[in-house]
């Protein structure tokens, strides 16, 4: 199981992680198209900021994940192979129950044509998740358990 860990002393709040997250989850995976031409997907990482402190936070892939138990449709599931908490947008009905119970505020409303949520999927197609790979300060690190 891999997890992404924030290091607040290195985070400068530039929000590049958010931008690259959006690009990675866009249709074209092209920064200009993602922001200017296509439907912009919701960010799956969020920089929390207060005073001089900031850090980026995304789904913790909780061991006792409240979102899985609470999900009304069965769309939120544990991936047996990777241990990650995965969300199936096809089965999601956008009831927002997972948003109501996620202790990290890591789930957001997504989609325009239909109600659905989005959250960190650890970028299954990439060697290193986009937010980690694109942080200029190594304020996000990958930890392998």
């Amino acid at each position, binding site marked *: 199981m891999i997890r992404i860990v924030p*290091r607040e002393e290195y985070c400068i709040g530039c929000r590049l992680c958010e931008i690259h997250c959006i690009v990675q989850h866009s249709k074209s995976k092209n920064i200009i198209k993602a922001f200017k031409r296509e439907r912009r997907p919701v960010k799956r990482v*969020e920089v929390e900021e207060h005073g001089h402190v900031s850090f980026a*936070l995304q789904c913790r892939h909780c061991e006792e994940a409240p979102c899985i138990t609470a999900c009304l449709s069965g769309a939120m599931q544990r991936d047996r192979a990777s241990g990650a908490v995965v969300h199936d947008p096809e089965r999601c*009905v956008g009831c927002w*129950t997972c948003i109501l119970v996620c*202790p990290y*505020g890591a789930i957001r*409303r997504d989609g325009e044509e*239909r109600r659905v949520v989005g959250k960190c999927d650890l970028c299954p197609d990439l060697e290193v998740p986009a937010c980690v790979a694109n942080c200029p300060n190594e304020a996000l690190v990958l930890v392998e358990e």
Partner: protein
Amino acid sequence: MKSYRYAVIGNSAAAVNACDAIRSLDGEGSLAVFSEERYRCYSRPLISYLVAGEVSAHGMYYRPARYYQNMGIDFHAGVKVTSLDPAGHLLVTREGEKVKWRKLLLATGFRPFIPPIEGLEEVDYLTFVDWDDAKRMLRLTAKPVASLVIGAGLIGMKAAEALHARGSAVTVVEKMERVLPLALDERASAMVSERCRRENIGIITGQSVSRLEPRGGHRGKAVLEDGSEVPFDLLVVAVGVRPRVELAEEAGLECAGGVLVDKHQRTSHEDVFAAGDAVKAMDLVRGEPAVNALWPIAALQGKYAGMNMAGREVPYPGGNSMNAVEFFGLPVLSAGVVNPPDATYEVITRQGDDGDYRKVVLRGDVLVGMLVAGNIERAGILTSLIQERANVRRVKGFLLEEGFGHIHFPRSVREERIIEAVAGLPKPAGEKAGAGKGKARADRGKGRAR
């Protein structure tokens, strides 16, 4: 005679999560599910989405088609259990079949409450609690009809929304002064009502139905307290639900407005467990057992009942009331106490210009309730603070901010929540000493006493 290590009565949120938990600890023990309904496990709350055309029949299922096979579950579909003998470790089905079990789970859920309204029995009314009800509603609204819904709780409002999506003219009558009176506060209720009225859904509050005049089949006329009349082609009764306790009661298990369980979801008989809407279990906010008829709570109780049935003694962490709704583009989330009963509670609200509304309810330094309408993102952080009974004195001024989050907690607390609590991870290299587990725990005591 058939004999199982585990027998489960019911086939919904509580039952299926119990089966999952049992199988995660015991891959071998024989396991049977008895379900009065014929369907494979489906998500009950999705019936309104089905009627509205937002999910397909296929999308209703909570687990894949091969679930029972893959999990090694003997699925008795359409089999009602009519009596129980805990001492003899026996159950009897409607067909008269006797089945032996070692551990039993009662996950019998709820049934709709039917109020004694004059004339009701002569009308072919609908309830709105299961897939068959949804099918009936779909059939009866093939052509748009004028429909009346009695009750503006969650189920009544969901029924109204579904009927509206079918092109029906809808009126909702509610005895209390406002819609969703339990889940929402006054202002949020008004916001929802306004959206409904804009969509031409008639909302009549503070009035009950005195009598019904049948006009054959599904048709009739409701006469309200003030004498006004509402004719309808279709009537939906949704005034509340009651725990289904009759099996448990007849078997001599302790019940009091719900099956009573200990912290391991065990009933008054040591081999019989119970979970879900039929059960009164610990409510974290009220500090006493309560029925919280909610999918996430039923699922969580089922999970803990299952673990305990399979021999791993783990206490149910407790639940609390909570609601996630969206009506006509307005999402509202709430948890815990949203309508404080007296002045010992502190209420802080904030109304944004974009229609965004937030509210927190505190008792002393403890967050006991929240409601967020409009911009609902990250409200789960508040829910988790309510569930942890956390002391929020230091972050009180930030609770209603949209950007409220872990950044506002003392560093040691957020490090524990973000890095350690989740996984017990080793610290990433380069982390300063002193933020280790022991220290974080000690600081937590100061920052957010439990």
